[in-house]
């Protein structure tokens, strides 16, 4: 009567593999004459004739919990970029035009509604082949509308930022559950073994509770990168030494390997010992890879201009693309400031303006690199906003209050049917009424696109098979190509 998931943790029987057994590695001694990371010191030492015939290590074919794994069925998407619009963007000003609300501007909401109607200060225009209406706040992104599937009928449980953000990121409002990115890297591993499989970018950092792996092994936890910094050692902890150059570190590592080897000669083969040797090599490479990955100056000037890489969001989006391109499985980009209680007519447009060009550039860039087909891009916040003006805001110019009953998100790329609108809200955008989609449904859809039956991607903990969608979730088939 157990779930038949292939991903359940192996039962703890004497012959079944345990987590640490997955670290069994094939370690190879490579002759120094080969190229690779040892090359730096080869020349130096060789030229001086000091350490002839020294050997070094290479990680080859290593199998770690982060190694790529196949999904349950053929997947449409291989990697995910989640642009999290923190603060809950207003649906009626972005992706869900409501002319009736506009007509009612500054009038009391009709019976059943509260407060004074606040018609969107923005105009909408039909764009693309699909003719989907796009708010004027997204002029550049609008050009890509035929790549997007807009879901207008999202709803969530509790309209509190922190709680709804947890819901969006972990599928639970209270309990300690693994985040979406953790589930995805648990299911698929990652293509890049020199970097974490789940990275979240945010200027000012990202609240760790939204990135946690909970009961999943710690390696699947998201790594937060504070993109307000440009120095690599502030982006990733301990990523570089202040006390030794890479050349010196290479020689330290070579000595370390020799000493470890001398030590383990009496101990015969021991997977734990070997795994640790590999970890040092991976760390050494990660220092270089990370430095390179986060250095957007390596991008051509034209690309940097296209992304507006001199702005925080442009920079993040460009870093995100570099990460995805190098095989990081799940990248999240945090873009806050959508909590427009007041002054919405100005603030929301500014907010959208920060992301409009970078995201448009990203979609074009992914497409041009042939990556859009298998990269799932998601944009959205944690809940939506009221169609009426926020009476409590004490602001001179109106904004909107929280609303859990309706919000819009869009998805693009990997397996998404572009130019689609799914679901409807009522005539004022107050509540999702047709084809309602809750957060579990969204999660189920993401997993589906990645090749998983959300009911079967499970992990045995505390005697129960846990899953991202708890006990619900339906795949939104209409947005799947």
């Amino acid at each position, binding site marked *: *009567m157990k779930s038949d998931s292939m991903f359940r943790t192996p039962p703890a029987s004497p012959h079944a593999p345990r987590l640490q057994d997955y670290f069994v590695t094939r370690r190879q001694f490579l002759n120094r004459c080969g190229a690779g990371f040892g090359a730096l010191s080869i020349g130096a030492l060789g030229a001086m004739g000091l350490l002839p015939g020294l050997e070094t290590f290479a990680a080859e074919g290593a199998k770690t919990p982060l190694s790529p794994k196949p999904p349950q069925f053929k997947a449409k998407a291989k990697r995910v970029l989640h642009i999290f619009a923190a603060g809950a963007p207003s649906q009626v000003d972005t992706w869900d035009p409501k002319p009736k609300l506009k007509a009612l501007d500054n009038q009391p909401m009709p019976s059943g509604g509260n407060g004074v109607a606040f018609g969107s200060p923005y105009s909408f225009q039909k764009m693309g082949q699909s003719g989907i209406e796009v708010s004027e706040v997204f002029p550049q992104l609008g050009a890509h509308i035929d790549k997007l599937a807009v879901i207008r009928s999202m709803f969530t449980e509790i309209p509190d930022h922190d709680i709804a953000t947890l819901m969006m990121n972990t599928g639970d409002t209270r309990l300690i559950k693994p985040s979406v990115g953790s589930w995805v890297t648990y299911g698929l591993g990652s293509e890049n073994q*020199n970097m974490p499989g789940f990275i979240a970018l945010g200027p000012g950092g990202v609240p760790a509770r939204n990135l946690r792996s909970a009961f999943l092994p*710690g390696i699947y936890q998201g790594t937060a990168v504070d993109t307000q910094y440009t120095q690599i050692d502030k982006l990733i902890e301990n990523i570089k030494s202040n006390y*030794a150059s*890479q050349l010196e570190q290479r020689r330290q590592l070579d000595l370390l390997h020799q000493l470890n080897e001398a030590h*383990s000669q009496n101990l015969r083969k021991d997977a734990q010992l070997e795994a*640790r040797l590999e970890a040092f090599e991976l760390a050494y490479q990660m*220092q270089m890879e990370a430095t390179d990955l986060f250095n957007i100056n390596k991008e051509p000037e034209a690309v940097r201009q296209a992304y507006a890489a001199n702005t925080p969001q442009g920079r993040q989006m460009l870093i995100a693309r570099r990460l995805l391109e190098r095989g990081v499985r799940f990248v999240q980009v945090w873009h806050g400031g959508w909590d427009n209680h007041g002054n919405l007519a100005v603030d929301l447009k500014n907010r959208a303006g920060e992301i409009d060009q970078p995201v448009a550039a990203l979609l074009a860039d992914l497409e041009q690199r042939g990556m859009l087909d298998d990269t799932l891009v998601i944009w959205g916040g944690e809940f939506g906003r009221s169609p009426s003006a926020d*009476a409590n805001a004490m602001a001179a110019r109106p904004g909107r209050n929280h609303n859990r009953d309706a919000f819009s998100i869009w998805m693009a790329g990997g397996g998404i049917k572009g130019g689609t609108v799914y679901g409807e809200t009522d005539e004022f955008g107050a509540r999702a009424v047709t084809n309602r989609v809750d957060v579990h449904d969204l999660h189920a859809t993401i997993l589906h696109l990645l090749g998983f039956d959300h009911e079967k991607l499970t992990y045995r903990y505390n005697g129960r098979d846990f899953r991202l969608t708890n006990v619900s979730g339906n795949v939104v088939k209409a947005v799947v190509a």
Partner: protein
Amino acid sequence: MKSILFRFTALLFLAASINSRAALTPEETQFFEKKIQPIFVNNCFKCHSEAGTKDGGKIKGGLRLDTREGLFKGGDSGPVISPGKPEASLLIKAVRYVDNDLKMPPSDKKLSDAQIADLEKWVKMGAPDPRSGPATVIDLYAIEKAKATNHWAFQKIAPPQPPSVADTNGWVQSPIDKYILTELRKQNLAPSKKADKVSLIRRATFDLIGLPPTPKEVDDFVADTSPEAFSKLIDRLLDSPRYGERWGRYWLDLARYADTKGSIRDESFVGSYTYRDYVIRAFNEDLPYDKFLMQQIAADKIPGEDKRNFAALGFLTLGNTFNNNNDDIIADRIDVVSKTTLALTMTCARCHDHKFDPIPTMDYYSWYGIFNSSYMPEDGMIIEEGSTNSEAQAFSAQLREKKKALEDFKKGARAQVKKKLFASGGDYMLAIRDLEHSTNGNNGAIRNNLFGSRGLNNRWADAWTAELKKARSEPSRIFAPWIELADFRDSEFAARAPSVLAKYRGGNVNPQVTRMLFPAPTSVKQLAARYSRLFSEMEARWEQAAAGANPNAGLADASFEEIRQLFYKPSSKLHVSDGLIDDIYNRDNRIRNRVRDMDRAITEFEASHPGAPRRAVVMLDKKDPRDSHVHIRGSASDSGPIAPRRFLEVLSGDNRPVFKNGSGRYELAQAIASRSNPLTPRVMVNRIWQEHFGEGIVRTPNDFGVHSEKPSHPALLDYLAWTFMEDGWSVKKMHKRIMLSSAYQQSADDNPRYAQIDPGNQLVWRMNRRRLDFEALRDTVLYIGGKLDTTMGGPPVKLDAVPYPERRSVYGLVDRTKLPGMLRAFDFANPDLCTGKRDVTTVPQQALFLMNSPLIVEQAVNLVKRPDFTAMTNPEDRVRLLYRLIYQRAPTDTEIRLSLKYVDIEPRLPKSAILGDTPWEFGIGQFDTAAKRIRSFAPMDLFTNNMWKAGVASLSATGGHTPSVAQSAVVRRWTATADGRATIEGNLQHTGTGLGVQGLIVSSRGGPLGSWAANHNTVPTAAPAFDIQEGDIIDFMVFSRGGAAGDDFTWSPVIIVTDPDDPSTAPQRFDANAGFVGGATSRYHLNAWQKYAQVLLQTNELIFVN
């Protein structure tokens, strides 16, 4: 007992009962009940019944087998049974596994041939089904419970009888060995040889105190050849206060201990650390385990209990506060108690009867009632007064100050609010007038919106609305002019106001109002502002008067007194009441945030100050303890039956007593810490065994339920559990019992043949090699560097604060939501979960920590700063010392050879730049004119006033001062981090009073790139484009042109590097000014010995214990 919840469901369905069955023979009924029903229940109901899917699953394929009706109706693919015709029945086809697309039960859980035959026979009989309508709800729980009655973990512990085993070579030293040897023999295995003495003392020392032995301790132990040597060693270690710090931490893992509350705000607990200190003390004092549990669950209920021990209640209270969700908090408490002490996962039963274990929902809510009848007092409890020392005095003085500052702020904020009420009177008047003029109507929503957008308070606005309305019907001595003028449109106001106002001169209005009307206002806004000023003026006068002798007398000026009455007379509509002030005060986010921040600062201060009185985060009984309803499917609004507060059915039977003593926590503690409870001792001895061997006898330490792994040595587990209780629940005696066995003292060496037979070493044919956990690793590194601070107890320290604290890791702050990266990287126990066994992962972040963390580098530097190290000059002696300190052994010849070679060669090898954003270094150097290269470069070692200094010479971000020696120059050194083509820009300016300066740029590869003299002027220092390779050094040297005391200059050149292979990439600019670093942020190269010591700290031999 039947599951009440199931019966409940059954009742609901009875009402809709349909009965269409034909009469069956007793044989038919029996055949169904004996043969068919069990197959359905055990193999099909998970997916094809109401009960199996009640916690949210779907009925698969639309097919229900739990009712007769469902069975005959079939599922989405039609009927599944053709009575009398097995071959035509879909159900038979499915269980036969003949069709690849239809195999049931799925996932290769094919039924046995006998079961299939029974089903075939049954269908042939016509599929007789005696069940009556949809009411047939099978009690899955009862089935599981029946299975559980025989489960090993719930059996009583009998007095042990160790097996007799032929001990041919004296291996058996303890009854433990008899159990181990018996099982090994069964597999034709033999134990490993005894570990060598150095391994043994290292193993025992790490095991018991989490630190390595000192070289002297090793020598003493090796020299002690008496039979009691190991026993004495164990005693010494158990007596060490370091023991409690090591073993207390394991318990803290279970207790999901943290110093902060988690949730959104993640505030600190005040007094969490007293629980940590209690646990350490309990282990050090060898508090009997049963008492230890009693205190942690019910210290407040134990008659005459020492107040200090109330800290033990942190076991219950220090969990995540789940944003104050009471049900989640209680679930967490039930979880921590049931898992830690009983290794049962009770929280599954929060929503439904446990799927595997005999724990019904009723049991969960019995415990829920217990914890819901207890509470956590907000301020905890003072368990020890702060001493009279200076720290305690400093604490109370500062606390008083902080609290006063908070009170002052609150008082000040209220005063501000009040002042603002008067100063904004006109704003309210204006808003109400605008509303009346509005074309949008004047309903509640519009009104709120307008007031909100102008920052006005609704309640006060309502008062104004009423007052102004009154002024329209009965002439007001204060508002009459307003009423008249406010109706004018803005465009006509200025023209009409003067004539209207004329009549108020000397009219029947308050003289102060009259005074302010002239000269006539030009706009209604202006008039409103004058009212505001008038109210403020009155308030200012009153403030002054009220501070004087007789505050009850009112204002002397009758006209102002009349205005005052408007706001101060309790019957007045505009009465400024305390309630009104509170209302505005409470809605002000700015005030609220500030108060919250100040509150929080006080909490953090109380939580972290060493002089604070010791508080405990305690739990006490509520005055009105009561039983709870079952929450059906975990939903509090869906009440099931009452669950009396009492212990678990599976452990104390159907007729167990109901708890009567307050909340029942004391009785719960008694039931848990009882000799008649077989789980409590088994679970604990298994935990102790696990930390000595790396694996438990039961490998799922937090789950002894029906689906847990069977013990590898059940009889041994019971032997240990029994002796544990016989020894008075002494944990220390258990350590000694285990460690004195030959099983524990085996070598950790591998045996490939055995590893084939028993790869997991379940039979204990050797000692497992274990990796140090984070605490042991960090403590060890500090310890061998001679830096470990052994101060015990007190408020937590931040392990990642700079300078790094040198306390033991167990005293580190455990912040639920901001756990330091180093803890996370090294598998530290998740402080939100009861952790019985930490993960052991190997990830690059661990290596990065050992390679790059300043904490580790500092310890490497400390190691070679040790006086015993620096006293040695012979490199080989130094290597030997480090080996003794770190590994407690002598190095082999190979190791000596490798080590000496490294420290000999390393200083002569190229260094290149440290990877970083500022590849600049600062030093003094000389130029070799013959070789046309720099001859020497010595880094400056003093950084002060934002400049590097060496004698009179200095370098700042923008310039510097040349040395007094003519041949020496200050050198700003740059090292290339990539290949490319470079150009240099800059201006050398002589700013001193001497004879000028000479600038020289030298490349390590190409020689001089340019030379310039500046003498009371500025010269451009551009070098033509040149190729560079990674690691090339460019030195910017500045010499004095004859000034004996050196000379001042400014020169902050910029190197611009382009990539000739890809011209589109942005050129990299290395600006000497921007790249200037010094002091704490500076980078420096470790010397060879320091680097060597760091390597030793990274080795496997240090981190793995054999």
